[in-house]
């Protein structure tokens, strides 16, 4: 049996109330009032599709051994690099082996499901096993645009395999249409779109039913057979029309989370699928449809193994940790949409030295330290000479990945002198659970959330952005956790 064996989700913590955006920009397009309901999820200044995909993939790995992973497929239309495989960064964050398949998918909003289909094909063919598919997007609309209001940031991940399958793959049907409702040219930062009536009627209105009908015909099922139907589309009228045309009951259509997250692009069908799986029962038939440059439609049937899954954040756990971002100017700053004054100190240019980065890539991407085999002391960064003054053994170590077990705050400070695009810089010493200590930036928090001894989780983040060379450097930061959280 081939199918999904695990799932994970990630929605950034911060929410921007759409009326705050409209309050600043509504004067330029008053009709946007209709779109200014609810809130959109906004990635922190230190997040991007790579970090979000890594977080969703880590969530997907809950309870699973990292050496199992036989492939990592990353999907995004807003990848931070044109050339530097982002799937390798996600794999690094997961601390997988490096003798696996890694691939980036992109180019259109159906890329998330395209990656999923490819993973299912590989596992079915037996050419790869336990492939993680992780999709994330961080799409931008110009100030005052519809897209700015409607888009949200987020990621979702699935593991595809042939053991412990929780949702069996029953078939798929795909279309490719050069229907350019949205596009970005090679150098573009902002989404461009055509008239929304056309997108709604000629795009969603035609292609989603086409994909669903195609799948149903191919697999010998009817739209009404599905307990849960997933498709992205934030046009309420179009959704009603599609549901009616296909004979799908509205209560079987999975909520698109427009009011609480926004449209997360290539991640969105997978994020809704994760939500569906969280609420699914064994025997449920699930229809997953993506839209964007054509459609992929996939048919899954939930097995009773779904009740054996280790707990994970998924969608519900992420939505529960929301916090307000009460400033449109901060949103613009975090997304590098405006030029702000970060002081001359911020212009000191770090120089990313690739030969050094490669030598240290396990430490930097995987938070891998080492444990002295003579005395058991764990240390980070990995050391040749044991840090234990009673020991001092040289080159007697084994690697140990420290990203997954959390830690405790050893000290902290809130620093307005340090250069930061999101001041104050909050950092301090963190003791890894199990031994070892390093200095970390704290993120997704204020200094009031910190206390010496408090628990933290580690989160893969943008460490540094070199604007001159357009290099994004990644490392781990610490996020205060609720006491007793996993």
């Amino acid at each position: 049996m081939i199918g999904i064996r695990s799932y994970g989700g990630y929605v950034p913590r911060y929410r921007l109330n759409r009326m705050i955006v409209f309050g600043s920009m509504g004067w330029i397009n008053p009709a946007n009032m209709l779109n200014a309901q609810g809130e959109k999820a906004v990635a922190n200044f230190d997040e991007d599709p790579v970090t979000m995909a890594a977080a969703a993939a880590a969530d997907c790995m809950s309870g699973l051994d990292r050496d199992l992973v036989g492939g990592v497929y990353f999907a995004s239309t807003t990848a931070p690099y044109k050339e530097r495989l982002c799937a390798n960064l996600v794999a690094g964050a997961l601390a997988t082996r490096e003798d696996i398949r890694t691939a980036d998918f992109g180019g259109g909003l159906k890329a998330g499901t395209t990656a999923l289909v490819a993973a299912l094909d590989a596992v079915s063919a037996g050419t790869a096993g336990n492939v993680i598919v992780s999709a994330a997007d961080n799409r931008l609309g110009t100030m005052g645009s519809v897209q700015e209001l409607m888009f949200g940031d987020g990621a979702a991940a699935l593991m595809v395999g042939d053991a412990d399958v929780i949702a069996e793959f029953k078939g798929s049907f795909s279309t490719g249409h050069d229907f350019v409702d949205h596009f970005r040219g090679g150098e573009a930062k902002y989404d461009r779109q055509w008239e929304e009536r056309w997108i709604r009627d000629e795009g969603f209105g035609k292609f989603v039913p086409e994909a669903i009908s195609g799948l149903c015909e191919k697999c010998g099922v009817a739209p009404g057979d599905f307990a849960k139907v997933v498709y992205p589309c934030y046009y309420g009228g179009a959704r009603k029309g599609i549901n009616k045309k296909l004979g799908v009951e509205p209560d079987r259509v999975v909520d698109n989370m427009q009011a609480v997250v926004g449209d997360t692009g290539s991640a969105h069908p997978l994020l809704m699928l994760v939500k569906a799986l969280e609420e699914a029962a064994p025997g449920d038939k699930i229809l997953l449809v993506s839209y964007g440059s054509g459609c992929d439609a996939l048919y899954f049937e939930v097995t009773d193994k779904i009740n054996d899954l280790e707990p994970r954040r998924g969608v519900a756990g992420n939505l529960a940790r929301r916090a307000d971002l009460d400033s449109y100017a901060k949103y613009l700053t975090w997304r590098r949409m405006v030029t702000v004054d970060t002081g001359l100190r911020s212009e000191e240019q770090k120089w990313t030295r690739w030969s050094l980065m490669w030598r240290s890539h396990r430490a930097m991407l995987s938070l891998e330290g080492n444990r002295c085999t003579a005395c058991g002391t764990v240390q980070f960064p990995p050391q040749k000479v044991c840090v234990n003054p009673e020991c001092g053994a040289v080159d007697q170590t084994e690697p140990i990945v420290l990203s997954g077990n959390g830690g405790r705050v050893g000290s902290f400070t809130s620093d307005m002198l340090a250069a930061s695009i999101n001041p104050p810089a909050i950092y301090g010493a963190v003791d890894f659970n199990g031994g070892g200590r390093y200095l970390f930036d704290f993120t997704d928090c204020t200094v009031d959330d910190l206390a010496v001894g408090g628990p933290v989780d580690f989160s893969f983040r943008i460490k540094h952005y070199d604007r001159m060379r357009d290099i994004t450097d990644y490392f781990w930061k610490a996020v205060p956790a609720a006491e007793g959280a996993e």
Partner: protein
Amino acid sequence: MAEGIRDKVVILGMGCTKFGERWESDSEDLAVEAFMECIADAGIEKKEIQAAWLGSHFDEINVGKGGNFLGAALKLPMVPVTRVENFCASGTEAFRGACYGVASGAYDIALALGVEKLKDTGYGGLPDSPAFGQIQAMIGPNATAPGMFAQIGTAYSAAYGVPMEKVKQAMAHISWKSHRNGASNPRAHLRKAIP
């Protein structure tokens, strides 16, 4: 068996500039100013100096690498010049070097000079550069010196159960004391006592 350097070295003379922003002076100007006071105080001529130790930590924004700076600025005779750095102990490091040079019997007269011109960065506080190596620069927090030391406050407060208010009062007292000391030293950067 090492017997230490007690009673083997004397300080012949000292010089010191006024501390401060000194916008009008380069490191060269500061070095010459301190040096001239020093050899006058020592009662020696420059040509009697047989070796020199230069302490300067943030070479990247003032004196540059190696010992070149000191020989060039002071027009020292052809003698070895060693630049040393060790963060806030760079001056001590230069002094140690000169002392060992004399105590070892290698030299009769050695010069130790420390200089730091920190104000050409365009911003307040210490220059922001990878002071702890390249790996730390890539993965350590973008910390400042005050930020690193401030962590002692929170850790101390938790370890000994002292409320942060009291920790802050103790730290403020240090600053109050420093300002009072500065007020009585004509070469100090800040010269106003805090009541």
